[in-house]
């Protein structure tokens, strides 16, 4: 199935040059592991083509409280349950900040559910909305983690 699927190709490939050292950059984290914070709506497994919505995750979240709502049964979820840092490494990002490897951790991060065969709403609605938020926050760099 993976080889037969018509994958989207990014063309041209956009490029934002890093204009300052990592140690001066504000970082945001994005994960497609379908995590939600306590009280947030789960990703909807019933949407045809996949749920293209996203959740904002506050930077001070206790990582152990994140809830895995990814719909795919094609991978082992036990690692995510044991240590959500495996796909949403907010503890590691905070440590990078404490060690002076990055300038700062953004106050919010974004979670979405990557099991999307239909990508138009992701590329035309969710991704631009996430970008608007991160630009407004003054984010310089983003780390994106699939699952």
């Amino acid at each position, binding site marked *: 199935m993976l080889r037969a699927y018509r994958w989207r190709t990014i063309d041209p*490939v956009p490029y934002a040059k890093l204009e300052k050292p990592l140690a001066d950059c504000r970082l945001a984290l994005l994960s497609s592991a379908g995590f939600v914070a306590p009280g947030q709506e789960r990703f909807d497994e019933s949407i045809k083509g996949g749920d293209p919505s996203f959740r904002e995750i506050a930077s001070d979240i206790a990582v152990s409280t994140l809830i895995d709502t990814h719909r795919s049964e094609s991978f082992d979820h036990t*690692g995510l349950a044991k240590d959500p840092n*495996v796909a949403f490494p907010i503890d590691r990002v905070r440590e990078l900040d404490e060690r002076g490897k990055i300038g700062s951790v953004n106050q919010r991060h974004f979670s979405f559910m990557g099991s999307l065969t239909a990508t138009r709403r992701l590329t035309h609605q969710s991704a631009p909305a996430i970008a608007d938020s991160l630009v407004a926050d003054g984010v310089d760099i983003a*780390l994106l983690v699939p699952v």
Partner: protein
Amino acid sequence: MCNQAVGLVAAELERRGIATVSIQLLRFIAERVRPPRALCVPFAHGYPLGRPDEPDTQHAVIEAALRLLESDLRVPVLVDYRGE
């Protein structure tokens, strides 16, 4: 699918001036989708930063990814993670 979704979101952020690096779990998908900068890791689906509760490994992968932001390689950048 997750690999593709991450790449597509990364591209939008780059268009808006945010430098991105993506973890990728399957090289053939990364080659097809072409996220701007990506670190291809040798881990199973469900374990993009390696095994749970191994912060040293998680740090090693993340720092290898962040180093790609400082490289002068032309996009799309796709580098294999070769360990600490």
